[in-house]
């Protein structure tokens, strides 16, 4: 996934940099003379005076030794030049310039005729003194420049090394660690006292270290505003993290040194860390989901066995009792009741387990030519006996049509619709099933009288495990019925949708449509 960051400059222009390039670009695009370079590169009067004094002392020593030993102009000037070169290797440029002037004075006074006088006797000596000064200054300048470059390079190398170490520690950190623990590598790097990462996906705020300037709040605020927050006075720098064109979080640093140089690369690392956190979280969720599915499958198998075996015993015992010739009419009726109710419980168990299995599995219908109306009639017969005082009416408004369908699955889907209609309709009302044909489809409309489905819930009623506000209050359920029924309809090439108008005051209607196969359409047309 492309990752981009907003750094201080890019935020204004709105440009986005790829994370892999961000570090490099930010380092290379900077002018070399920046705040944060080694202290020796910055001009300091105190240091210059010190180096100047030291250099002058060196000049004094050479002068004294040269005077005692009777050095001529050439020998003395070479010794002074050597001192200036040595001085420029360690001291700063200004100090070297001053020492060069002191050396020039000494050379003139002690070693240029007339000696012990600043007066120059011969014009050629003026040229020699000028050459000495020019050489000394050029050498000083060149050596200082080379040294500056070396120090800058060293400083950059140090920063890259530090960044590399932070990256290494971040990669080694486990994103599942306690909140903020995986941000620890940021602390201490470039003077960072506290680091904070806001993850928009989970709305979690991770903090490492203690903040004096409300870093967590400022990080969250920066994300909400979608803008970076730079406060140089407090040393707080917050950057928004963008992935694939959207803001996915924000990272804040407190006490960050050289923010203009370091904030960008650190933000790029934070973006990579955030992406890794998401990947780990998604992988964990997938693993947990797979484990849950495996547990559910085991539980369903156990349920199937543990429920159905005692039910079989009850059914067999009740059936055998009913078959026994010795029972009187009352006892016979009781045995029949036990058998019928156990059978009902068995049917319910089968339907629940089947629904739960279909919810997790891909539906593979065993298609065969099926008489649609007969399947509807079967489901209605089953439900008429258990629907209490609801009247179920089937209104066939077309000639019988056959569909290519799995009868068991189709019966299950229609049963779910009937179950839904009976559960949520008004006691004593009727549930109407209207079968029609239209545009090569057969349609079943299930119409019941009851509390209409709220507009806010219409988009969710086919979601798995979704239960309406009223539904939760009114009756028990799993929130799987409509989800599975629609899944079955779609697996048959049809659909299931809510068909009642939002304005309908006291009715709820669902429409299931299934395609009529070409061969049957030919028969109908023929």
């Amino acid at each position, binding site marked *: 996934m492309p990752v981009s960051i907003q750094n201080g400059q890019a935020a204004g222009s709105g440009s986005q940099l790829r994370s892999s390039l961000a570090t490099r670009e930010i380092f290379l695009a900077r002018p070399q003379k920046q705040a944060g370079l080694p202290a020796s590169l910055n001009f300091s009067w105190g240091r210059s005076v010190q180096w100047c004094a030291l250099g002058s002392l060196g000049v004094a020593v050479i002068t004294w030794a040269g005077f005692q030993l009777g050095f001529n102009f050439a020998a003395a000037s070479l010794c002074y030049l050597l001192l200036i070169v040595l001085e420029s290797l360690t001291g700063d440029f200004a100090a070297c310039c001053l020492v060069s002037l002191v050396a020039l004075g000494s050379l003139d006074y002690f070693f240029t005729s007339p000696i012990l006088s600043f007066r120059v006797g011969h014009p050629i000596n003026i040229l020699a003194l000028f050459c000495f000064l020019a050489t000394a200054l050029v050498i000083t300048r060149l050596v200082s420049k080379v040294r500056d470059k070396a120090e800058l390079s060293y400083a950059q190398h140090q920063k890259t090394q530090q960044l590399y170490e932070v990256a290494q520690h971040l990669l080694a950190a486990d994103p599942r660690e306690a909140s903020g623990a995986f941000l620890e590598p940021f602390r201490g790097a470039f003077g960072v006292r506290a680091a904070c990462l806001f993850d928009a996906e989970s709305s979690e705020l991770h903090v490492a270290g203690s903040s004096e300037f409300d870093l967590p709040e400022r990080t969250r605020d920066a994300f909400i505003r979608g803008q970076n927050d730079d406060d140089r006075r407090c040393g707080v720098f917050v950057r928004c993290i963008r992935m694939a064109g959207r803001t996915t979080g924000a990272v804040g640093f407190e006490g960050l040194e050289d923010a203009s140089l370091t904030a960008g690369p650190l933000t790029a690392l934070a973006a990579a860390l955030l992406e890794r956190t998401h990947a780990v979280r998604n992988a964990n969720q997938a693993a947990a989901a797979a484990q849950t599915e495996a547990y559910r499958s085991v539980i369903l198998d156990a349920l*199937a*066995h543990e429920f*159905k*075996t*005692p*039910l*079989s*015993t*009850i*059914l*067999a*015992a*009740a*059936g*055998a009792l*009913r*078959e*026994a010739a010795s029972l009187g009419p009352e006892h016979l009726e009781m045995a029949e009741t036990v*058998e*019928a109710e*156990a*059978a*009902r419980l*068995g*049917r319910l*168990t*089968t339907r629940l*387990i*089947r629904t739960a*299995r279909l919810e997790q599995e891909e539906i593979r219908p*065993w298609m*065969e*030519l*099926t*008489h649609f109306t*007969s399947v509807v009639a*079967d489901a209605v017969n*089953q439900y008429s*006996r258990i629907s209490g005082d609801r009247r179920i009416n089937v209104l066939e408004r077309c000639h019988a049509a*056959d569909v290519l369908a*799995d*009868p*068991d699955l189709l019966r299950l889907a229609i049963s779910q619709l009937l179950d839904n209609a009976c559960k949520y309709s008004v006691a004593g009302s009727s549930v109407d099933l209207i079968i029609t044909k239209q545009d090569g489809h057969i349609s079943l409309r299930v119409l019941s009288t009851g509390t209409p489905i709220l507009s806010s819930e219409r988009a969710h009623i086919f979601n798995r495990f979704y239960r309406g506000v009223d539904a939760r209050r009114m009756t028990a359920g799993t929130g799987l019925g409509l989800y599975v029924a629609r899944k079955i309809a779609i697996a048959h090439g049809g659909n299931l949708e809510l068909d009642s108008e939002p304005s309908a005051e006291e009715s709820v209607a669902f429409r299931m449509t299934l395609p009529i196969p070409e061969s049957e359409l030919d028969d109908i047309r023929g």
Partner: protein
Amino acid sequence: MTSAVSFSILVVDDEPSLRKVIRASLAAGGYTVEEVGTGTDAVGLLQRRSFDLVLLDINMPGLNGLEACRKIRSIAPQTGIVMVTVRDAEEDKVRALEAGADDYVTKPFRFRELVARIGAVLRRTRRHSLGEPSHVEAGDLRVDFRRRKLWKRSEEIHLSPKEFDLLAFLMKNQGAPMTHAKLLGAVWGPEYGGELEYLRSYVRMLRKKIEDDPAQPFYLMTEPWVGYRFNNPADSGSPSSQLLEDE
């Protein structure tokens, strides 16, 4: 209930209460019933004496039902085997039939369904022991296997050779579920087994010719994901798919 004084049944189930109820119920119907709690005990008992039918639970600890079924089939090829499976596990049904079972009942089952299945398997095994019939009548259908002819209400129906072979195979095994692989192997040849589309299209053609309403079949019943079963309405004990849903 079918009179079955001479038939002996072995009930194999790890659930003592279910064993007890089935034993008592079948004994009341005139069957001689023995019961054991494990597949190993069942195999051991069958090595010592013979039974007409074994009612075998598929889910048992130790030697499971499928393994026990294979062993029983090798020890006693003539013994009918009805397996008890759990609904919604079609693979178990296919595996049971492939392991040599003659039929299956799915939990939770009603007693009369169980008796019907047992009766159908016993009749079939008895028929097989008497040799293959030359003709069979089922409802409005009459088929002459030697002359390869089929009549429906005295009117001859023309069938293609493959249609006849398929119908004849199902009618000879009437009441028994036949897996797709078994049907394809028997009718098309041993090299066939996975070509379900052949079977579907032939069954569809057959239904159009022999059923009053092909979308509500009466003779050629589908066993979803398992295969097909020929239902003979004249066979009073023969279970039909309606019986499974009949509550």
